[in-house]
């Protein structure tokens, strides 16, 4: 029984880290793309993402921080929740049936995931804006590019950057999706066992 609580907690940790990493990577990608786009000649004609260098640097820094901190952040979060009793300690999970523990972890997980999902959605939106921005810039300058083959690598590197981070983002997205599906499958199992355990608990305290 305790293995359910441990499985839930391990999934929660892995998925939260996946969420944060995906988010950090996407933000970093958006920031770098914006940086590339705003430093290219096309940006003067097409300033779709041009609120200035400060915004760009802020996005890059924020993305880098999010990308770098999921592990320590999660450990702090787990310690904090354990102290508050929102989630049970590993000791309780390892030694006890702790179905209530599993249910509490799932509840906490849902709360955090809704926040992380919103953050991830904003990052995806920023990616789309960046893609449109770079895409439009490249399309506008296509005739000029075709006429000057020598300048292709220099002109296309922002596009390559976008493709790279988008690929990484999609891979992480798949990872997050898989973890979420695993938790969804586990959730009814935990709930069913939890209901039976609560019934046993109620009967025990009535009888003894």
């Amino acid at each position, binding site marked *: 029984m305790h293995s359910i609580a441990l499985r839930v907690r391990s999934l929660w940790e892995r998925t939260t880290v996946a969420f944060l990493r995906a988010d950090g990577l996407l933000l970093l990608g958006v920031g770098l793309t914006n940086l590339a786009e705003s430093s290219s000649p096309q940006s003067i004609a097409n300033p779709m993402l041009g609120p200035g260098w400060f915004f760009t640097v802020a996005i890059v820094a924020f993305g880098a921080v999010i990308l770098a901190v999921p592990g320590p952040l999660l450990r702090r979060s787990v310690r904090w929740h354990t102290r508050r009793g929102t989630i049970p300690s590993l000791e309780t999970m390892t030694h006890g049936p702790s179905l209530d523990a599993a249910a509490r972890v799932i509840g906490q997980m849902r709360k955090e995931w809704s926040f992380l999902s919103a953050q991830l959605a904003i990052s995806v939106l920023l990616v789309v804006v960046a893609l449109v921005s770079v895409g439009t810039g490249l399309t506008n300058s296509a005739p000029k590019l075709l006429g000057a083959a020598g300048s292709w690598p220099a002109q296309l590197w922002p596009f390559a950057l976008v493709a790279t981070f988008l690929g990484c983002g999609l891979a992480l997205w798949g990872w997050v999706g898989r973890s979420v599906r695993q938790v969804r499958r586990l959730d009814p199992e935990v709930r069913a*066992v939890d209901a039976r355990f609560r019934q046993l608990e109620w009967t*025990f305290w009535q009888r*003894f």
Partner: protein
Amino acid sequence: MEPLQRPDLYVVVRLLETVRTSERPLNRTQLQVASGMNYTQFERYLDLTVRRGLLALNDQGAAHPIVVLTPKGYDALMFLARGLREVVGSEFLTLP
């Protein structure tokens, strides 16, 4: 000492099971160490189980009273062992 708001059934099982399987009589401190609980939690659960008549303190004038499992405590332990086995679907405690 604050009473327990919602006692953890497993901790109750652990306490009763420790007393039942111990090879020698245990006093409070020995039982606390054997059951692997911190002092505050142990005192709360001991108080609960004694009040419910599942455990008893057999002092007989001794400085360190011995904790014993009552017949009601034994029944409770068996009830929980069977119940948990049904809930978990595997052997949770070794039934005597």
